[in-house]
């Protein structure tokens, strides 16, 4: 963390110039923060209003009511619990698979000296450039052949390994000293034990960062579930929101309540892990 200017000789921490600069700085960050959070406030107030309109909602809810949330809960065609569990299962499984596969590959590409290692790594990384839309059509056809359309395995399978995760974890394992592994091997560990018992525990910050990223990405993923989940039973929350959007488009209170339900779990998770997150980012090779 950078030391502040006022710890240096010749820097005054008082006077008109200092206070005016500080005021401008705070005005700027506060204005930006308001722009970022005000939409959430509007969403909250709208979701708590009965039949909201522009004239009645902006900063406080008009005719406060919980009816929108109750309606979401009670309407027979809105399978809220099912969709929530679908999203949990989808995002959870994708995250678990990514952490496992990417840490295995990242470790091998950083610490195991095997044939063609650098070329394979470059191959993995260059797949990042393939836009999702190119593979979407054939992957869909493949899953039709397998009969995996509208199934959990169809939702999860194509997303179980991603090149960005391999990259991040390889960088992290590279930054750990090789002597640790050599010592473990002299003590009789095999390659897998060295990975699992020595290096993996040291990679926790990087794993946490990758885990949060992957979970958020899957929780909010729109493109893939839109293609593969066509039955209401298999919707994830974002797809469900898109589907009911067409039916209840004018019912803004309902739509805002649904939007809040999608974002709430992620916000809670982020606030709990905030410190870990930025720390892990700078440890995991996303360096400047």
């Amino acid at each position: 963390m950078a030391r502040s200017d006022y710890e240096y000789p010749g820097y005054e921490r008082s006077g008109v110039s200092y206070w005016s600069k500080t005021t401008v700085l705070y005005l700027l960050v506060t204005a930006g923060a308001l722009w970022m959070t005000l939409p959430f406030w509007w969403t909250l107030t709208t979701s708590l209003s009965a039949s909201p309109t522009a004239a009645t909602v902006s900063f406080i809810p008009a005719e406060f009511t919980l009816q929108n949330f109750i309606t979401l809960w009670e309407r027979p065609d809105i399978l809220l619990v099912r969709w929530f569990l679908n999203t949990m299962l989808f995002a959870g499984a994708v995250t678990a698979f990514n952490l496992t596969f990417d840490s295995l590959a990242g470790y091998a590409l950083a610490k195991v000296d095997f044939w063609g290692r650098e070329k394979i790594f470059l191959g993995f990384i260059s797949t990042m450039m393939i836009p999702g839309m190119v593979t979407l059509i054939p992957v869909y056809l493949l899953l039709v052949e397998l009969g995996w359309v509208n199934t959990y395995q169809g939702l999860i399978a194509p997303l179980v390994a991603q090149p960005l995760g391999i990259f991040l974890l390889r960088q992290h394992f590279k930054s750990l000293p090789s002597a640790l592994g050599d010592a473990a091997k002299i003590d009789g560990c095999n390659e897998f034990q060295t990975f699992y018992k020595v290096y993996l525990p040291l990679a926790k910050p990087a794993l946490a960062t990758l885990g949060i990223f992957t979970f958020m990405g899957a929780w909010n993923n729109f493109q893939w579930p839109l293609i593969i989940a066509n039955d209401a039973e298999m919707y994830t929350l974002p797809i469900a929101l898109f589907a009911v959007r067409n039916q209840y488009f004018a019912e803004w209170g309902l739509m805002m309540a649904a939007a809040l339900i999608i974002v709430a779990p992620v916000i809670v998770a982020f606030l709990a892990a905030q410190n870990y997150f930025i720390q892990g980012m700078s440890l995991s090779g996303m360096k400047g």
Partner: protein
Amino acid sequence: MATEPLQSTAERTAERLRTALHDLKGYAGITEDQNNLMGFAFIAPNIVVFSLFLLGPVLFAFYVSFQEWSILAGAGEWTGIGNYVDVLEPLPISYADGSLQWRPEVFTDPSASLWWYSLKNTFVYAIGTVPLQIFGGLAVALMLDKRVRLRKAYRAAYFMPVMLSGAASAVMWRWFLAGDGVINGILPTFLEHNWAGDPGTALGGVMLMAIWGGIGSNMIFFLAGLQNIPEELYEAARIDGASRWHRFRHVTWPSLGNTNFFVFVMAIISAFQVFGIALVFSQGGPVYATTTTVLLIYQRAFEEGAFGEGAAMAFLLFLLIFAFSYYQYRYREETEVDY
């Protein structure tokens, strides 16, 4: 350089250590074959997933792009580059005295060719959002890297839009920008307007939403980058009497080289692929005003079932993104600064 002998001494020591360890490996019972076996065992799951869901599909998409391929009937007639011609053709083609004429209206008139029109929308979107997402993120990171009170609360506030799914934020912004929406509720009457429903402002609405959602994630990348700049560099600059601007220009900015590259390439690639927010916000309308290239591909392939043409368009987009990334990579190699 004064550091060179020291470095080569270190390298020689490291080399000796490596040789010693290599000899040791024989004793620990580890051979090269075992290394190869373990290495490939560790990456096997990824190889399977990538070949099944990335490389195989890319090759297959290339094959499909030369055919008529419908969602119901499967493979149809082999048409060669027919799909590509259909996509790129400014329709209807106008021949003046038998030659193909360049028609600039393909970029403005949706009835000419939706490919060109969607490309225009995508470029407008990219040019309007990417710089603001990046420099906004950098500015916020610089402000919040200092000893601002409540730093954590501010960071969380800026990060909140990032956590929201594209679908949810599109629904939210649609309500803010609707004719009876919240924005009009706080605007004076003479400025009221149906922002989302007017072809002239709908794409602007999508862009506003994207900038709102993009600043926070770039802020996180820049904050991580800033934390990795050694404090000694600033100390030296301060002792030399460098002003705040000079410290930024000669220490912070060059030290963020890799972060800048990463953030810029990611922002451009995701701008070229924007899809979900446009689909939920306005389904490409009104009058194709928010039809981006990927949204057009989705509609052709999955709504109209023309997989062949969709695949051809996806490949053309792939070429664009690849050309851009390659250019960036080369440019970076030339300008990279080493310390």
